[in-house]
């Protein structure tokens, strides 16, 4: 579904709101490349949405910061021009910049959870804009703030005016940030990944809100994202960056359907489809793992503080067979990770049990946990924090096998073999995690899990933090390994596109409970529950055929 009600070619008489020409910004000495960005040129017309697209580290945020005049001290612009409404930002002094910020150009940031001052009331944070940039009286300002709250569809503006950020949901906070950005009707709005941290449903709402406000005011929008679905939904114009260089730019359909550059094509190819892939049927073997009625209630706060309880998972039952991939999807906080931890027995469930048929008979109860650990391994979401930064990756990888009784030499051999499997060179075992990219680290984590020769792999958001291209590699790697070793994979994700590509069966969770489960095809193509349907409906870029002109 395309939303192109807006003209993509503005009349020539209108001058561009933002002009970026041959922008070059230096990185500090010792960085891996000399320039954060170089040779970037594009225009943003009033009423136009230009998307900056590119992998992590490609310089998207740096461009946004440069436009706002907020570059960190370490980064120095060394060439080119940035003009906002005809005035050069790079040459402006601090006072001018401050006056322009907010009034002429405004920015919406990625993290709604941290973008607001936690100790200031929401109303005051918006009010600050008016107090700083206008001469309005207090009563008038309050009126205006309440009006914009209503505009950005915040419920009960009066209450929210006096609320602190932590009393609002992520989506509501992002609306406040948007209200801050738009209250002075700036000519240029910069959105740096404004929806990445949000649920798909909330994301959809926020995107349509931005679109609406932009059309209403004729604002020029510079929109940064790595999510192709979002680009497909919102962009008029697309600029593709790679390692700080501009690879390709043009109208959305030109770039996304008929890319000229191989790099763009590679990216597009890596975008997973929303339609479920065809997967070979799984033999009807007895399950490797059988979770029955797993329930977890967190109790936090110790005496003399106040006790709080969170029912993070309630009565979750699932089975996993050899060679099968079971996906758990659901929005943030729905209890996915909790279930994963319970199943991996990293935390003790409050109720229910995890039944591992072939372990029960074999081992004495004390040895059982050890055997279980060997059988079930976990790959965590955040590749940057999943490896001990103070140990070489080799040490991390052999830790498990050594714990399970293998000699360090043999364990090292096995680690070297595994490097082959995850397509890294064996020499890298001597390096430290900080010397790897996120994707490489995630592969190392997988290698670490596999080193124990598990039969079950639990992947908790194992690819969520990665760029599409890297994500694609990892998914393929997992599929290949599963084929070779016939392990069962429990795959947890919030990304329906990913889930649809690799899962045999899907479980949808909501507020700690399973709302629907079935084969991936059934769930995705003919969902029974309303919740599942709303989840599907909110997925961005639906029906947009990437790379297929």
């Amino acid at each position, binding site marked *: 579904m395309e939303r192109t009600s807006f003209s993509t070619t503005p009349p020539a008489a209108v001058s561009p709101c933002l002009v970026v020409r041959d922008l070059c910004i230096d990185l500090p000495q010792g960085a891996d490349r000399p320039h954060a960005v170089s040779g970037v040129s594009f225009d943003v017309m009033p009423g136009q949405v230009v998307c900056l697209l590119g992998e992590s580290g490609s310089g998207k945020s740096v461009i946004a910061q440069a436009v706002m005049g907020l570059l960190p001290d370490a980064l120095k612009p060394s060439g080119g021009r940035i003009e906002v409404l005809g005035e050069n930002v790079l040459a402006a002094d601090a006072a001018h910049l401050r006056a322009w910020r907010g009034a002429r150009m405004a920015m919406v940031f990625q993290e709604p959870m941290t973008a607001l001052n936690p100790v200031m009331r929401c109303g005051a944070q918006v009010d600050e804009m008016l107090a700083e940039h206008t001469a309005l009286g207090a009563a008038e300002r309050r009126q205006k703030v309440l009006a914009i709250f209503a505009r950005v569809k915040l419920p009960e503006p009066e209450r929210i005016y006096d609320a602190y950020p932590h009393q609002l949901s992520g989506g509501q906070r992002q609306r406040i940030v948007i209200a801050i950005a738009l209250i002075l009707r700036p000519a240029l709005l910069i959105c740096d990944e404004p929806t990445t941290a949000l649920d798909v449903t909330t994301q959809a709402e926020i995107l349509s809100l931005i679109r609406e406000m932009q059309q209403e005011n004729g604002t020029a929008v510079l929109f940064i994202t790595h999510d192709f679905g979002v680009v497909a939904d919102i962009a008029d114009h697309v600029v593709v960056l790679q390692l700080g260089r501009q690879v390709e730019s043009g109208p959305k359909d030109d770039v996304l359907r008929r890319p000229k550059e191989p790099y763009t094509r590679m990216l597009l190819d890596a975008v997973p489809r929303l339609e479920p892939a065809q997967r070979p049927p799984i033999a009807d073997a007895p399950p490797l793992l059988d979770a029955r009625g797993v329930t977890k209630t967190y109790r936090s706060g110790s005496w003399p503080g106040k006790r709080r309880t969170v029912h993070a998972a309630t009565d979750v039952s699932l089975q996993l067979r050899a060679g099968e991939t079971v996906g758990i999807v659901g929005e943030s906080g729905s209890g996915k990770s909790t279930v994963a931890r319970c199943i991996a027995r990293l935390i003790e469930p409050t109720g229910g049990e995890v039944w591992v048929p072939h372990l029960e008979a074999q081992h004495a109860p004390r040895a059982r946990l050890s055997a279980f650990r060997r059988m079930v391994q976990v790959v965590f979401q955040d590749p940057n*924090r999943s490896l*001990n930064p103070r140990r070489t990756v080799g040490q991390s990888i052999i830790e498990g096998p050594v714990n399970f009784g293998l000699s360090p030499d043999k364990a090292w051999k096995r680690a070297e073999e595994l490097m082959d499997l995850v397509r890294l060179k064996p020499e890298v075992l001597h390096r430290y995690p900080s010397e790897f990219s996120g994707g490489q680290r995630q592969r190392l984590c997988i290698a670490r899990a596999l080193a124990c020769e598990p039969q079950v792999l639990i992947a908790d958001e194992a690819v969520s933090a990665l760029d599409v291209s890297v994500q694609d590699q990892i998914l393929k790697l997992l599929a290949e390994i599963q084929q070779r070793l016939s392990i069962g994979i429990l795959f947890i994700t919030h990304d329906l596109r990913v889930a649809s590509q690799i899962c045999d069966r899907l479980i949808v969770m909501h507020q700690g409970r399973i709302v629907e489960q079935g084969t991936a095809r059934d769930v995705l193509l003919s969902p029974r529950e309303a919740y599942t349907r709303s989840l599907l409906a909110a997925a961005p870029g639906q029906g947009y055929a990437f790379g297929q002109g």
Partner: protein
Amino acid sequence: MTSISPPVDTTTAAPRSHRKPSLLSRVFANGAVRTGSVLLCLMVVLAVAAPWLYTIDPNAMDPANSHLSPGAHAEFTTLAGDSFQRFFPMGTDSMGRDIWSRTAYGARISLSVGVAVALGSIALGMLVGMVAGYFRRLDGTIMRVMDGVMAIPGILFAIVLVAVWRPSLWTVILAIVVPETPRVARLVRSVVLSVREEPYVEAAIALDTPAWKLMLRHILPNTVAPLIVQGTFVCAAAMLAEAVMSFLGIGLPSDVPTWGNIMSEGRAYFTSHPSTVLLPGVFLAATVLAVNMLGDGLRDALDPKFNKRGS
């Protein structure tokens, strides 16, 4: 789409992480660290080489030559009856002892007190903090005891301990270590509590790593950086505390020269002979300053918060 090896792949690692300069050079890039360590090195040299730095026995006294001004020349007659001509760079104290010699030898004691207290309170605090942080069941009890220890004014501890055993180097050290320990324990505990939640610790648990290995390999190393910083502050505080104990007359005996001792010896003569306090004071202040600067610098250099990229 068929091949699983895109171009960036099987290359060697680290194509992106800008090669971080080594920790040491990063730390030494910090001006405060450089100044601090140079100053500290000088003090260490002073302490080690004291016998060769134009010193005499720090306890040799000639009461007839008490309160010589800095730079005086005098005929010095020891109690044994030997006499010799000597130049007194920093003068003599009220008992006619050479302040320069006492200061030079005092560096040994004062530095040892600082270092020993830092090491002692860190070792003790680390143990307590680790146990409290890791074994949640003991946490409440241990931290209550630590609260109790913190609630008792340090000076009380010092006096009582010094009175229980007599003032010796070890008593003084212990008397300063005990009140410092709870602070270190709290620090370690908080680090342990936060590191426990790190995914890599969870991963290690999933790998069936035994508790002691978990502590040693995964949790302990994280406490090192904050502890080094804390240690420098404790070290500086200990040298001052020793001086204050001497001031109150419960410090080391005066035949053990320490900077605190020398100063408290001279303090009663502050208006008439300020140099007896101020000159050793300069050494003490310089050392404390050096150690503090080192600590400050290290904190800035080691704190990941300020090394992360700006945006």
